[in-house]
């Protein structure tokens, strides 16, 4: 019983840090999206939208490096896309943090499980899946 309790308290600390990590990630990324949105509307508000046909080349921000290059010009759409990137990385950072916390708890089975999940996402990030 005492062992269970000890584990539980370690879990509680991890849960509080995880919660903070997620909250900060969402607030930060959404703030960036909001600012980007204001810039985007200020400069592009009178353009005519046309989203009736999907065109994979149109958005122009389909790799992480492209987003960073365009970000240098402080274009509204690039700032939005950077914020979205931050948002996508929020749960990924959560997985990374979980791996470390399981490492501290010496729960190597879950270190392995977390590492596997991370590898799946990193494989997806490597951009080999979209032809």
């Amino acid at each position, binding site marked *: 019983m005492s062992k269970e309790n000890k584990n*539980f308290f370690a*879990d*509680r600390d*991890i*849960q*509080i840090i995880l*919660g*903070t990590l*997620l*909250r900060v*990630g*969402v607030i930060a*990324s*959404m703030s960036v*999206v*909001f600012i980007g*949105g204001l810039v*985007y*509307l200020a400069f*592009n*508000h*009178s*353009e*005519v*939208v*046309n*989203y*009736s*046909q*999907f065109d994979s080349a*149109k*958005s122009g*921000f*389909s790799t992480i490096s492209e987003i960073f290059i365009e970000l240098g010009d402080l274009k*509204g*759409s*690039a700032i*939005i*896309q950077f914020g*979205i990137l931050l*948002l*996508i*990385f*929020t*749960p*990924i950072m*959560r*997985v990374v943090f*979980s791996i470390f916390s399981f490492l501290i708890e010496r*729960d190597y089975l*879950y270190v392995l*499980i977390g590492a596997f*999940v991370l590898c*799946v*996402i990193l494989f*997806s*990030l490597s*951009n080999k*899946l*979209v032809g």
Partner: protein
Amino acid sequence: MFGDSIFVPMSVLLFTIIVLLGAFVAGLVGSLTGLGGGVIIIPLLTLVLGVDIHYAIGASIISVIATSSGSAAAYVKEGITNIRIGMFLEIATTISAIIGAVITVFINPSYIAVIFGIILLFSAAMMVRKKVDHSDNDTSGKLAVFFKLNGAYPTENGMKNYAVHNVIGGFLMMFIAGIISGLLGIGSGALKVIAMDNIMRIPFKVSTTTSNFMMGVTAAASAVVYLHRGQIDPGIAMPVALGVLTGATVGSKILVKTKTDKLKVIFAVVVAFLALQMIYNGVTGKL
């Protein structure tokens, strides 16, 4: 392409305002009913604004990451979420979400609309259904013990222990939920509930919060594929993500004070109508 479209050309400003308002309502209702914002914003974008379903899917998955991470932050701190169950099932959902996101572009948009409509109908039915808690603390299988999935959660009368059952069945159901999530850009909460409540027999509180916890990672896995393919357009994703997140935040504040039973029935009817509309448009090839 303008000639055969029934939708009027719109300025960026007008489009952004309409989507922002629509996404706010989607997020609000999605959080009040537990349905999630994605299943409402996609019909709005495609049926009302004439947006290609691939763009709608890309924008929706971003709103799923935002709302699930936001609410998971609160749940995790309360200590209800079972992080081990979450991490374990993420093996299934991340792999399958990527598979879903990769194949979605090879499927005719009409078929996607039909699948979407069916999932929507199913979610509406799940929403009004009376929930039965199957959880117990009886002996569970070897796998649940090996993966340390059994846990305890805080209740009014102190900590309550629960056992996890049928790990393999739940894992397979999660795999299907992940494919649907990647295919349609939604959280597929209704399918996750089946896996956790009915198959693995986890208590409601734990299953709801744990499914929320997993949703962010699952959605991130497929969002990366969408991003690389150019399905995430900043002009749509911005108002969708901001609107849904704001609506969901307001919704979670109201939720504590109101009874949602009647709202759920009214809303199930609306969702069923949207679902039939999606199926109809898919079958007739309009989407």
